């Protein structure tokens, strides 16, 4: 493989936010590998005391990466008549979740994101009632084993 990257020229870059394992890279690189696991919980009565959910509880975080072979028998040859890529202005609002904003060349990029959404629409009253039930069950178990 012959990899001769071009030079990237950017006059102005504006980026408001880069969060959650996002990368803002200026310059060349050889290999980029990033991974991001997310559990997003929407719950009306916020409960920060208990650790209700863990990555080990869900299968999606343990599923193997899809096997997409990189090897190909194509013989690719590049000819750069102009040695530069010019971009005058770049405006980015946000970068998040194992994403990459890269100015410059790279040989390989590999990223993997797993996202699990949990929406708990129970109200305060429902949660209180369910907790009460659980308590009663426990008490009953202790009294009549």
């Amino acid at each position, binding site marked *: 493989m012959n990899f001769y990257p071009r030079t990237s020229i950017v006059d102005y870059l504006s980026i408001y936010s880069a969060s959650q394992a996002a990368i803002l890279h200026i310059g060349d690189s050889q290999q980029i590998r990033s991974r991001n696991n997310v559990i997003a919980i929407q719950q009306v009565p916020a409960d920060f005391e208990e650790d209700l959910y863990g990555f080990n509880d869900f299968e999606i975080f343990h599923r193997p990466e*899809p096997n997409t072979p*990189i090897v190909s028998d194509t013989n690719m040859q590049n000819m750069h008549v102009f040695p530069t890529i010019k971009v005058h202005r770049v405006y980015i609002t946000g970068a998040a979740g194992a994403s990459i*904003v890269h100015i410059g060349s790279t040989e390989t990029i590999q990223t993997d994101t797993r*996202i699990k*959404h949990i929406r708990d629409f129970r109200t305060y009253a429902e949660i209180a009632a369910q907790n009460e039930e659980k308590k009663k069950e426990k008490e009953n178990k202790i009294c009549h084993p």
Partner: protein
Amino acid sequence: MNFHVTNYQLEVCDVHVGAVASSSIFLIGDAYWIQLHSMFDTPPESLIITPYIPLSLR
């Protein structure tokens, strides 16, 4: 298979991007190979129920 690529002049004025998220890339440059994976697990309750909020102010 033989595959020949000839790159001539490339010059761009403005690029506006709303968001780069979840294993996506925004690249100004060359790359040899790129492999991006993303898996979502979203219950049906997560159907959009909130009003549309624009990401960009423009």
